[in-house]
C-alpha cells in the first residue's frame, strides 16, 4: 500500500472519557447523564474526528466560555464548551433534562396523526439529538439514557422521519419527471439524485438507522442496516451515478425513480 493510500488509524479512546471534563470543571454536580455521540460512538471516527459529548443537567449550564446554539425549546438554546486535548477537539453540549423531555413530547402518536407535516415536527438538530440516543456511548446515568431511549422507541419518531423522507423523495421525483418532460435533463438528473437520497434515507430510517441530516454517513448507515430491499452494491452504483449516460440521462433518471418507488412500496409507514 502506498503512503498516499495508507489508512491512518484513529488514536485510541481515552480510558476515562469524563476525566478531561472533570479536570476543566466541565462536569456539573447536577449531571444526570453523559454520553459520547457522533462518529466516535458509532466506531466510524478518524484521526481528525471531534469528540462530541452530551451532558444532561437539571440546571442550565452557565459559564463565560460557553457558546449558545438556538433551539425551538424552553429555554431556547443549548450551551456548549470546546477544548483541545492531545490535538483532539472536544465539544461538550449541555442539554437540560426538561429539553430532552420537550423533544420527546413532540413525537407522540397523537401529534403524528394530527395532520401536522412530518417534516415540521422536529428541527434538524432536535431530530439528530434524539436519534443519537439510539447509538451513543453512555458515560454516566446509563439507566436514564436507557429510559429515554425506551420512550423514543415507543414514540412515533420512526414513522415521523420515514414519512418525512418519503414525502421529500416523492417531491423530488415529481420534479425530475417534470424536468424530463420539459427537456431540462441536467436538472432532472439532480432531482433524481435528491429523490434517491431521500428514499434511501427513508429505507434506513425504517431500520432504525437515523441521521438523514448527515448524508456523509449514508453508506455506513446503509451497511449497518443491510436492507433486503436494495443491495449495497446497487445503492452505491446509483449513488455514484455509474450508469449515467451524459448524452442521454433519461434512462438513468427513470431507473433511479423506479428504485425510489420500489423502496416506497416496501417501507412500512404506520
Amino acid at each position, binding site marked *: 500500500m502506498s503512503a498516499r493510500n495508507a489508512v491512518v488509524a484513529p488514536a485510541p479512546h481515552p480510558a476515562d472519557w469524563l476525566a478531561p471534563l472533570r479536570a476543566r470543571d466541565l462536569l456539573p454536580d447536577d449531571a444526570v447523564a453523559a454520553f459520547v455521540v457522533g462518529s466516535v460512538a458509532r466506531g466510524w471516527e478518524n484521526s481528525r474526528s471531534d469528540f462530541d459529548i452530551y451532558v444532561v443537567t437539571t440546571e442550565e449550564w452557565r459559564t463565560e466560555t460557553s457558546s449558545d446554539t438556538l433551539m425551538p425549546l424552553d429555554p431556547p438554546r443549548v450551551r456548549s464548551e470546546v477544548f483541545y486535548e492531545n490535538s483532539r477537539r472536544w465539544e461538550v453540549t449541555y442539554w437540560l433534562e426538561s429539553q430532552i423531555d420537550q423533544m420527546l413530547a413532540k413525537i407522540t402518536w397523537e401529534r403524528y396523526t394530527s395532520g401536522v407535516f412530518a417534516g415540521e415536527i422536529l428541527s434538524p438538530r432536535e431530530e439528530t439529538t434524539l436519534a443519537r440516543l439510539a447509538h451513543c456511548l453512555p458515560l454516566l446515568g446509563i439507566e436514564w439514557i436507557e429510559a429515554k431511549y425506551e420512550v423514543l422507541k415507543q414514540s412515533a419518531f420512526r414513522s415521523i422521519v420515514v414519512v418525512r423522507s418519503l414525502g421529500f423523495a*416523492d417531491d423530488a*421525483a*415529481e420534479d425530475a419527471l417534470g424536468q424530463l418532460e420539459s427537456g431540462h435533463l441536467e436538472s432532472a438528473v439532480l432531482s433524481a439524485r435528491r429523490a434517491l437520497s431521500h428514499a434511501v434515507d427513508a429505507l434506513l430510517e425504517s431500520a432504525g438507522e437515523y441521521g438523514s441530516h448527515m448524508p456523509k454517513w449514508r453508506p455506513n448507515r446503509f451497511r449497518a442496516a443491510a436492507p433486503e430491499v436494495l443491495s449495497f452494491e446497487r445503492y452505491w452504483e446509483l449513488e455514484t451515478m455509474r450508469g449515467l449516460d451524459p448524452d442521454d440521462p433519461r434512462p438513468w433518471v427513470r431507473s433511479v425513480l423506479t428504485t425510489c*418507488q420500489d423502496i416506497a*412500496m416496501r417501507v*412500512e409507514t404506520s
Partner: protein
Amino acid sequence: MTSGPRVPRRALGVRVRLVAGNLVLGVDAEGMELADVAKLIYESADGRNSVSDIAGIVAAEYGAEPEEVGEDVTEFLDELAASGVVEWVTEESPR
C-alpha cells in the same frame, strides 16, 4: 383481449405508501388501497413481467391455473392503467 405481449409498468410519479401491509396509491382523497391479490398484481407490474407472467405469478401464489386468473388479471391491469397508476410498456402486437 390478448394476454400475451402486453407488458405493464407501475407509472412513475405515483405516490405509494405501505400502510399496515397494504399499498396506498396517491395521498389525497382519490387514494386507492390495494390488498392481497390486487397488491401482488401491482407489485408485479415492473416493466418486465408480461400480463401472462403476472397471471402466472398470481396463479402460483393462490394455487390456481394461469388460465383461471388470466382474464381477471388483465381486467384489473386495464383498470389500473385507466386510473393512471400503471402504463403499458408494450401494447398488443399486431395480429
